[in-house]
């Protein structure tokens, strides 16, 4: 898989619709044979906590509200499916988890690991990097 085209997504926003856009791009890319690495940092980090998803405590704008109303499969489900069918890995920013005192076990099972920027750059080497 070393020669597979690579995509790296940097998620910063807590908004549901932005997470959804990233999940769509990431999952379609992974299922089309691309190697996808996702770095979750800043405001997006909280959205990968088990507690947030259990409480459906999302940040909603117009499209986000409609995603919920129409019961569309949300970002964590899309990432989960993509992980099963392709190469997609989700990493949490170590700075944010340290600052907020969130532990590995507080995060969703789709999360691969908690890493720093240097580790992420290593994974993203040669990839197209898209910030959402």
């Amino acid at each position, binding site marked *: 898989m070393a020669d597979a085209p690579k995509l790296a997504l940097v998620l910063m926003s807590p908004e549901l619709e932005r997470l959804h856009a990233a999940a769509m791009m990431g*999952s379609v890319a992974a299922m*089309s044979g691309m190697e996808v690495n996702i770095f979750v940092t800043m405001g997006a980090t909280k959205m990968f906590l088990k507690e947030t998803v259990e409480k459906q405590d999302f940040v909603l704008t117009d499209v986000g509200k409609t995603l919920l109303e129409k019961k569309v*499969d949300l970002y964590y489900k899309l990432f989960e499916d993509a992980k099963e069918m392709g190469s997609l890995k989700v990493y949490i920013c170590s700075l944010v988890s340290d600052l907020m005192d969130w532990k590995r076990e507080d995060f969703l099972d789709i999360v691969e690991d908690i890493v720093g920027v240097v580790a992420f750059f290593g994974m993203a080497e040669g990839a197209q990097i898209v910030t959402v």
Partner: protein
Amino acid sequence: MPDKVVDARGSYCPGPLMELIKTIKKADVGAVIEVLSSDQGSAKDIPEWVKKSGNELVYSEKDEAGGYWRIAVKKVK
């Protein structure tokens, strides 16, 4: 006649495409998979994916009465 029909009606983009990819991965080379999709975006996206993935689009047609698309793909590799 398709070898398998995937009914993804009611599922939003990229749901129908995902269902198709899952099914194609498991299918034998030469198999024809038909996807039913009520999602307009998927009607455009699926043929694009088929072209890019090197498979073959057999047909893509809209069932006007039912308001959904029938898209058939042949797995060539």
